[in-house]
């Protein structure tokens, strides 16, 4: 039987990690990757942000689009949607000259920029192909864009399937949307801080996922909690005020979210492998 949120996440093949910027999303995606790889899985961490930072969290070379080993059954890849779509065109149009003609045309660029959900669908489609086609990984964790965009990402295949109904593209998107809707294969982990805006966005995102895709996050991680200072170590008023603010916002979150929640403390470590290693056992202990 599944006991903890981590056990449930370990049962998924595709996990999307999303949350407001500045909540430690990338570091927590790395922590989840390490934990899952630690369970003997081959895990690929996909980073979507064109400005790479995942490699810093794990202490590897930047990906630059390539799959880079991060040790212990974990790999990272920075993936740009334009490149994925271009690769797909080259695959579907086997004559290189023709494929190039297409990808260099103005109409193509406009279409890639403008088609609803195309870029997001391409990224998730890439993960899908790794899992169901090539089977080169047991699990793919997507370090998705910040909140608003993260929800858009999960809604994208359904939207594209609707818009491009009747074509091959629409059929591919519909297949992917069905895969994402299967809660036994796909999971979501949200990251936040116990501060007003992050909590607000998290509650809105939970509601958008429920209303839009009938998805429920497997885990909400509240990161960077200020410590409870007591006795002689109470510290200056600033610290107490921040801690009280954290507690009040955490209470607001838990009043509206009754699912699994992990509280992680602010740690005296810079972003990097040491921080990932220190957070791993704390996240593993989540209920």
């Amino acid at each position, binding site marked *: 039987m599944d006991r903890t949120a981590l056990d449930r996440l370990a049962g998924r093949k595709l996990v999307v990690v999303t949350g*407001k*910027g*500045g*909540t430690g999303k990338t570091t927590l995606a790395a922590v989840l990757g390490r934990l899952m790889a630690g369970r003997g899985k081959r895990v690929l961490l996909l980073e979507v*942000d*064109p*400005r790479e*930072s995942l490699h810093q969290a794990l202490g590897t070379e930047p990906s630059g689009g390539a799959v880079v080993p991060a040790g212990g059954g974990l790999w990272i890849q920075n993936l740009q949607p334009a490149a994925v779509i271009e690769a797909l065109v080259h695959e579907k149009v086997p004559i290189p000259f023709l494929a190039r003609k297409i990808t260099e045309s*103005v*109409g193509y660029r*406009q*279409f890639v*920029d*403008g*088609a*609803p959900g195309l870029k997001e669908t391409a990224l998730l489609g890439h993960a899908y192909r790794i899992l169901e086609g090539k089977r080169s990984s047991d699990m793919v964790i997507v370090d998705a*864009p*910040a909140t608003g965009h993260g929800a*858009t990402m999960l809604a994208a295949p359904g*939207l594209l399937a609707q*818009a*491009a*109904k*009747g*074509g*091959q*593209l*629409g059929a591919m998107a519909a297949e992917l949307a069905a895969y994402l809707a299967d809660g036994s294969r796909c999971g979501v982990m949200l990251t936040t*801080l116990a501060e*007003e*805006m*992050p909590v*607000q966005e998290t509650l809105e995102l939970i509601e958008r996922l429920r209303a839009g895709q009938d998805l429920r996050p497997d885990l909400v991680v509240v990161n960077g909690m200020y*410590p409870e*200072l007591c006795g*002689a*170590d109470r*510290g*200056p*008023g*600033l*610290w107490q*005020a*921040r801690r009280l*603010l954290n507690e009040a916002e955490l209470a607001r979150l838990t009043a509206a979210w009754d699912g699994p929640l992990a509280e992680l403390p*602010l*740690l*005296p470590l*810079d*972003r990097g492998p040491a921080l990932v290693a220190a957070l791993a056992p704390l996240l593993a202990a989540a209920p």
Partner: protein
Amino acid sequence: MTGALLGPHLTVVVGGGGVGKTTLAAALALGSASEGRRTLVMTIDPSLRLKDALGVSEEARDEPVRVMAEGAGLLDAALLDARRTFDRLIRTYAPDLAAAERIFSNRFYQDMAGRLSGILEYMAMERLFEMQASGRYERIILDTPPTRQALDFLQAPDHMMNLVDSRAIRFALDPWWDDARRKNLAFRIAAKGAMELADRVIGRRFLMDVVEFIRAFAPLFDGFRSRAEEVRDLLKAPGTRFLLVAGPGPDRVPDAMFFLRKLKETGHRTGPILVNQVHPDPGPGAGPGPALVRYLADRDQRGLALLRSLFPGEKVVVPVALEPVPPTDLQALGRLYQKLAAARPG
């Protein structure tokens, strides 16, 4: 006092997510107003707390709302809403009501008007231009969405011009889509091939939605184009400054560098860098204290030192201390402004 931080006319506040841009923009705007300037602050998505502090609610989505007036100075606040701005522009530029209705009823427009890349950001710029052109304000402070990605909004006017100029649109407007029209045979065969391919891959309905949208939109192109050019010029005007807000600590420095490099490359003027949420030094009297307190103070000092070493000389790095609680009323925002005004660039 705010003069050192704000642009003469227009200040665009930029920075990554969660660095406190919106609060600082509001505090600076309040400061500008209390110095006797007619000031407008435009924000994208303020927290409830900040909306309460400013005393504004949803009605500010349509028109700026008065926050305070004191002597010659006043402060208005407006909330940005991309969809409403887009709708309003269409009503403004459509030759008649029927043309506007044709766009509003288009499925492609309904699905995607707010999603097209850069549209959200572009609409913020459009609204800014509208406010600037109204002449009601001496100073405008624009809070921007936390696009960590690529400062999309800087390219937004160009995106809009490209879209309007693109061959794809002329292609869509060409009557070859109409089966009834006769063209020369070779062209029709080529077009038919392209059409069939697109049809198979993308689906006819989607294609026709897009074509219909472009056709409905065509009468508005010239208006949009000239506005996009004016917006681009406004962002590069001598009276405009980009104010970067960065998070504390060395981990946030690459973020700040990225923004500054982009702004420089694109020929925009930058002001000082505000490093927000800096943890104060606990001081020698505080004893050893918890390791975390010491670490955060040291970490944030390391971040400041790094930024200062990267921007010696004319660039200024202004630290802003972490507030015990975010401002909940105008008085607290006013105090924050006093701190900003007193902060010594170093």
